[in-house]
């Protein structure tokens, strides 16, 4: 199980290689990418801030999902610091014998990361205004 909170770029290509398995028939991946718009406003730049506990909490979330679903391998990474438009902020990859488990585990992994990980998102809009997401 690969889990990382990192300022380095993250990608599906990199993480999906870590969940390959000859016994697993299904691999599902998710990439949450930085968008150039939010609620109709044009986003110029974006930065994530992580609490020091983020790595440990992400490890707990990943372990919960691995326990709950019949998965083979799981990899998840959350990037922080400045991220360019189009780059990934969150990548999750799950392999399983059967596709139902792979889809369910990957989807719930992403939901739980979003709920539980102490990471914040700061957006600067094209008009120069800025906001902390979920805290406006």
């Amino acid at each position, binding site marked *: 199980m690969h889990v990382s909170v990192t300022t380095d770029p993250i990608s599906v290509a990199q993480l999906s290689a870590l969940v390959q398995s000859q016994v697993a028939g299904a691999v599902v991946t998710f990439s*949450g990418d930085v968008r150039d718009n939010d609620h109709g406003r044009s986003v110029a730049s974006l930065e*994530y*801030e992580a*609490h020091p*506990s*983020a790595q440990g909490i992400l490890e707990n979330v990943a372990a919960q999902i691995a326990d709950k679903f019949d998965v083979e391998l799981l990899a998840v990474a*959350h990037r922080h610091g400045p991220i360019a438009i189009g780059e990934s*902020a*969150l990548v999750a990859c799950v392999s399983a014998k059967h596709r139902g488990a792979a889809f369910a585990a990957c989807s719930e992994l*992403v939901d739980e*990361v*979003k*709920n*539980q*990980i*102490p*990471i*914040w*998102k*700061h957006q600067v809009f094209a008009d120069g205004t800025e906001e*902390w*997401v*979920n*805290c406006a």
Partner: protein
Amino acid sequence: MAVTVRLFAAARSAAGVSETNVEASSLGDILQQLEADFPKLAEVLPKCSYLVNETACNDKAALVSDGSTLDVLPPFAGG
């Protein structure tokens, strides 16, 4: 009781500092003192959750021992 307060994200932006020290004995007292020191925190603190020495603590009556660290966590927005 001297408590070290660490402010993150929107809370840090509102206060203008990432760390401060407060003399108070309960979580509620600490938050009142923070609002007094940094009036702009009044908008953010009601949305926040708290860690005392890295453990979740959201009971305003909870007593905080001398030398503790309080983390002020605005609503998460990962992913």
